[in-house]
């Protein structure tokens, strides 16, 4: 029985499709469109799991939400580590890999998400809390850029789950609160390499056909209402 990836289009669930493409895990794909006014998941998506947020994966009777839970589950059951995306604990870069893999969703994601939420709430640019939020994001982005100045991929010489988890926050998420990547040139170079990966291209084509991945440095076009 194949897993089902419930993909909310224009969302971070693109990463689960990408994960499966990279590791050759078979999956069935169901696509859902955001409510064009609220930008949120439609009612039929929210009904899939109490969390109501993407990604959601079904494996028979097992219904999972939460990117990292889904990832750990899929790796354990269908691509036990070490594998093409995850090094062994004995690998020299294991600590680097583990740091960047968790930095993606533990620090960078929340920092970028907070900037976006403050923009949605139209918080005044001079608001001191807003300035703090902006500073934290810029620090996280600079850390990523500095790492990529010194290393081809976040974990080390090879592409890994650390890179896969980081991409969304600096690409797709920008359609909701557009910003340039020009302050972080090594990130821009790294995204070019990401865009060359056949698994990434297949995942984006299948999940969001017709949508050009936001890999460029320029300010992307904001999401449009239908």
């Amino acid at each position: 029985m194949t897993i089902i990836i419930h993909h909310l289009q224009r969302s971070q669930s693109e990463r689960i499709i990408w994960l499966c493409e990279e590791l050759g895990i078979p999956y069935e794909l169901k696509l859902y469109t955001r409510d064009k006014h609220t930008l949120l998941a439609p009612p039929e998506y929210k009904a899939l799991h109490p969390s109501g947020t993407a990604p959601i994966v079904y494996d028979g009777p097992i219904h999972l939400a939460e990117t990292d839970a889904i990832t750990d589950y899929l790796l354990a059951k269908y691509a036990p580590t070490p594998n093409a995306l995850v090094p062994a604990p004995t690998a020299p870069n294991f600590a680097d890999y583990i740091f960047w893999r968790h930095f993606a969703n533990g620090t960078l994601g929340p920092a970028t998400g907070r900037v976006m939420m403050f923009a949605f709430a139209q918080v005044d640019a001079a608001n001191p809390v807003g300035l703090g939020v902006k500073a934290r994001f810029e620090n996280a982005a600079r850390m990523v850029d500095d790492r990529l100045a010194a290393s081809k991929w976040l974990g080390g010489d090879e592409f890994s789950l650390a890179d896969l988890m980081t991409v969304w926050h600096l690409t797709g998420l920008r359609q909701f609160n557009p910003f340039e990547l020009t302050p972080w040139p090594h990130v821009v170079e790294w995204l070019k390499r990401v865009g060359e990966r056949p698994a990434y291209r297949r995942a984006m084509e299948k999940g969001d056909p017709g949508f050009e991945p936001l890999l460029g440095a320029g300010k992307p076009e904001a999401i449009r209402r239908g």
Partner: protein
Amino acid sequence: MPPITLWFLQASRCIRIAWLLEELHLDYDVKFFDRENGIAPQALKSGSGNPLGKAPTLQDGPLTIYESGAITRYLCEKYDKQARLIPHPAYEVDRIKVQQWIHASEATFILHALAISSARSTIPEPGKSNGALKEMEKKMSGNVQNDVDWLEAELGQSNGKFLLGKEVTAADIMMHISIVFILKRELGTQGRTWPKVEQWLKDCEATDSYKRAVQKTGHKV
């Protein structure tokens, strides 16, 4: 008893707020006032809590709000959870467009047309028969026509019946009565017609929400 009360003057721009309330599916009471000799009666002037005694004035619980644009923004921010009528901030371009129309409906369209209306109602008699009023109207018509030409062009660019496409937004709700005012009273129109504008007015008035607003308030121009 609903917490929202709309203080409504007949044949005025109050219909905007009734239409908006209907679009938001909100429950509200109407305090209706007919004009007396063309103007608002004293009871409206002193009853609504608006220091200028103007309508529309909205009461929502303990709050009193006036100025169509402010009422529109208040109601949308508080009640439009679907962000249908004023787009979500992520839709920056659409949101700016709607804000522009909300402001232009008064600060551009009504502003230019009202000058003509005020001239008509205030010019002393010699000005009417000696052609002075006619000349003034002709000179003031340039701005009005510029404005309505712009509206016609924007409607031509829209990918639907309404200003922002296939669905009504606060842009249509605020703009509609401004244009009715201009066209019906021929304020600066100088015999010209604008086909897309006229169709758009019909489309606005054909919406269920507009029809309910008219029925509930008894609005007529």
